[in-house]
């Protein structure tokens, strides 16, 4: 079970205009494996996430999740099939409170008309609300539940995004630079929190430039450069890879 | 109280203030004259005014306010057809007479017992106009028709009144063009008219559109005579049409230079209007409003009304009955009666613009 890839990209290509951003990219993520996607700026990491979550269609290749081919599934339905994500630039719903933002995350699991027409913003006792509050509490965000998201500190907003993505019930969580903008202490907290989430059975894939975090959190690393995979392996392995040092890490980190 | 109160719904703001606002001067003149002559049944007459801003919903508020809160015996107004349409049903429900001075759309008052209009029948008036053109041997062998399609009365003029009467007079209709009330550019219509010149151009529209049309006709070199219904009878039309307006001919229910009474009225009106900074020439609607006050006063006198709030409903009904029965009343506009629909039957004056002045071509007393 653990060996079976939960997410697999097979010869995926994507170009914008004339620009080939992803070139024949293939890699697998095994179930439960904490994976990092790293690479220089503009390598195509966010684009990979966008392709997996269906923001753009691929030009060629196949993406499958849990053994299902999702290449042509509309983006709206992919979360139900198991992929959820956060965004590099924070994308919370500005006119909703923290709790309400998190409630939006549950949408993929809401199916009945009764649930859609249940006055969820009027009461606080429904299981949806309890669940959302619980997730907020675990992230240490309960105190902000009723605040508007717009003016909260950056780090808090990042955590809300993670909480929201988590509530979709997806098996795979794609996090785009979750540690960006966090100080070392906060990064550590985040790492702890993500470990908990991973332990509860969610597969986490992060795009991250903070190598400290990648080293501490990830078991497996895929390195992209110009849309192609240039290395993969454990953090220790890729850190030593001269191509990676040359293209990504620079001399002083090595 | 020793007062008898008449309600008055008018437009002091909104798109046609210029026509409606001066009505109040005329109405007040009538009230002052009546009171100077001892009032009605020994009581003074007073106007209670409500501004509808020309909006139908507000006209309804006006009728409700005046009928229920101000206990008026009858209501003058509202001005426009759109307002009258919604005001009449509510007045009927509240059992109070409402008499409009300008809403000339056909059969507006017909369904109601309490609705009256001191306006005239355009078909009858235009027939008189054609008769007088013939009498004066003014060429009228062929004609073109131009009308606004999105205004009831204009459309009726263009599609029913003009064709029917031209048919009767044997006038050949060579072209029909249409426009919208909001139109400002008449060049395409006029280009069509110019390609088939006619003796007459009959226009069904409010004054503004007629002015725009005639200006464009002359720009493109069309020399035909503009004829119209009373819808365009604004007193300052000669001035507003300028040179282009020469020969424009139309029927009206009021002609200021008709006789001593109209001249006197015009003079007093002019004086009062100047004091208020308004247009000094009385329009036919000013005269019509003046006469409405006289009708009401007459009916109130006949019905021996007391203004006692307890007898309000009966007295309102009595006023209605006396108005409905009114025949050949000597009004400012001439001798006036009411037909069974509640519409006034009144004399017609055919006037023509000549060198920037109104000129009476002929008068046609009421045919019963």
């Amino acid at each position, binding site marked *: 079970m653990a060996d079976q890839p939960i997410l697999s990209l097979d010869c995926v290509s994507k170009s914008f205009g004339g620009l080939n951003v992803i070139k024949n990219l293939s890699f697998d993520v095994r179930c439960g494996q904490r994976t990092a996607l790293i690479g220089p700026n503009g390598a195509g990491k966010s684009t990979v996430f966008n392709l997996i979550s269906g923001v753009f269609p691929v030009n060629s290749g196949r993406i499958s999740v849990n053994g299902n081919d999702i290449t042509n599934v509309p983006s709206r339905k992919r979360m139900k099939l198991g992929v959820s994500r956060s965004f590099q630039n924070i994308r919370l719903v500005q006119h909703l409170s923290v709790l309400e933002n998190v*409630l939006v995350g549950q949408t993929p699991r809401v199916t009945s008309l009764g649930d859609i027409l249940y006055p969820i913003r009027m009461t606080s006792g429904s299981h949806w609300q309890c669940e959302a509050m619980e997730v907020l509490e675990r992230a240490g965000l309960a105190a902000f539940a009723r605040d508007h998201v717009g003016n909260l500190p950056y780090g808090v907003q990042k955590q809300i995004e993670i909480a929201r993505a988590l509530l979709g019930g997806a098996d795979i969580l794609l996090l785009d630079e979750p540690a960006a903008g966090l100080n070392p202490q906060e990064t550590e907290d985040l790492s702890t929190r993500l470990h908990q989430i991973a332990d509860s059975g969610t597969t986490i894939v992060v795009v991250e430039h903070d190598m400290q975090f990648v080293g501490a959190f990830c078991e497996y690393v895929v390195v992209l450069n110009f849309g192609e995979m240039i290395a993969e392996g454990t953090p220790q392995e890729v850190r030593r890879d001269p191509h990676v040092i040359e293209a990504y890490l620079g001399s002083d980190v090595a | 109280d020793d007062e008898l109160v008449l309600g008055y719904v008018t437009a002091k703001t909104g798109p046609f203030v210029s026509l409606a606002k001066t009505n109040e001067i005329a109405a007040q003149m009538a009230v002052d004259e009546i009171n100077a002559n001892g009032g009605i049944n020994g009581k003074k007459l007073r106007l209670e005014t409500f501004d509808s801003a020309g909006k139908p919903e507000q006209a*309804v508020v006006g009728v*409700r306010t005046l009928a229920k809160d101000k206990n008026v015996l009858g209501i003058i107004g509202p001005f426009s057809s*759109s307002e009258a349409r919604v005001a009449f049903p509510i007045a009927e429900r509240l059992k109070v007479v409402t008499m409009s001075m300008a809403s000339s759309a056909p059969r507006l008052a017909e369904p109601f017992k309490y609705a009256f209009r001191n306006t005239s029948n355009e078909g009858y008036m235009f027939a008189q106009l054609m008769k007088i053109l013939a009498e004066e041997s003014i060429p009228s062998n062929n004609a073109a028709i131009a009308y606004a399609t999105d205004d009831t009365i204009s459309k009726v003029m263009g599609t029913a009144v003009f064709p029917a009467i031209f048919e009767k007079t044997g006038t050949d209709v060579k072209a029909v063009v249409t426009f919208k009330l909001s139109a400002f550019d008449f060049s395409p219509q006029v280009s069509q008219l110019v390609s088939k010149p006619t003796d007459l151009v009959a226009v069904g529209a409010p004054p503004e559109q007629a002015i725009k049309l005639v200006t464009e006709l002359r720009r493109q070199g069309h020399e035909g005579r503009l004829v119209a219904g009373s819808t365009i009878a604004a007193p300052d039309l000669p001035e507003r049409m300028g040179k282009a307006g020469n020969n424009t001919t139309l029927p009206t229910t009021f002609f200021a230079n008709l006789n001593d009474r109209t001249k006197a009225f015009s003079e007093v009106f002019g004086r009062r209007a100047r004091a208020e900074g308004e247009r000094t020439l009385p329009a036919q609607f000013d005269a019509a409003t003046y006469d409405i006050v006289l009708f009401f006063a007459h009916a109130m006198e006949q019905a021996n009304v007391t203004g006692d709030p307890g007898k309000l409903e009966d007295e309102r009904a009595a006023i209605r009955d006396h108005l409905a029965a009114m025949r050949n009343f000597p009004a400012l506009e001439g001798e006036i009666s009411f037909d069974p629909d509640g519409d006034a039957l009144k004399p017609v004056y055919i006037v023509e613009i000549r060198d920037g002045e109104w000129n009476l071509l002929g008068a046609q007393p009421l045919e019963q």
Partner: protein
Amino acid sequence: MSGYVEGILVILLLNVIFAYAVYWPLAAGQLNLGVAGFVGIGAYVSAYASNEFGIPPYIACVGAGFVAFALALVIAVPVLRTKGIYLALATFAFGQVLQSLFLNLEIVGGAAGYPVISYIGVGGIAVCTAAVFLITAFLDRTRFGLNMVAVHDDEAVSDLFGINVRAYQALAFALGAGFAGFGGALYGHHFSYIEPQNYSILFSISIVLFVLLGGTQTVVGPLVGAAFFTLLPEVLRGSEEWRYAIFAVCIIVIMIPRPQGLITSDQLSALRQFLVRDRLREERHG
């Protein structure tokens, strides 16, 4: 009830319904400048149904609302291809087309207008307005309302979270149109006469103004806006011909400090926070 109060109340109640007709599309980010057209559809359908087939007025009104709703769903498909001001202009154009349709439809009187026989009084309208308000307030508190805000703020993210953005936008548009039709039908039955001239772009714009002035972020905004727009000119009645000029100045002056409208969600949440905040603050910083 005094005749004046009754008269103004009717206008206010109808304006509130119209305000919610504009509120729903705005909640999904669409400025519907063709709302007058839907008001007209409702008015004509209901008037025709009750005049010609003797359908009871309330049923006719609700039915007319559904007709407007259905029509809007259909037209939403092409209209929602456009965005922002283009969408506003597309709805405006649609409204103009509808108005000229009414003008040319001789079976309901064309330019001459159409009398409506059965009557609905102020009480009936009050009940209907309350229903529209409660439906709106209720929907706003559900996931439907929640998702609508999400769609308004960020279509792309809403889509990724499984919200059918197109469906929500179309529903918002149609729901608004349904309310517009319902309100239009009530108008016809109360004022006993309808004419195409009523359903002009100026009418649409004035309704949009109520809602924007009241604020589009909360359910009470449109209510406040409609009340403001209906009552302020009444308050200014004494100023005679200056009335609308003063009114305009009031609008301009109000929008300066409150460009998002009189009532905003920040304000409401600040109010709520004010009531419960200190406990929260302590928790957070403690």
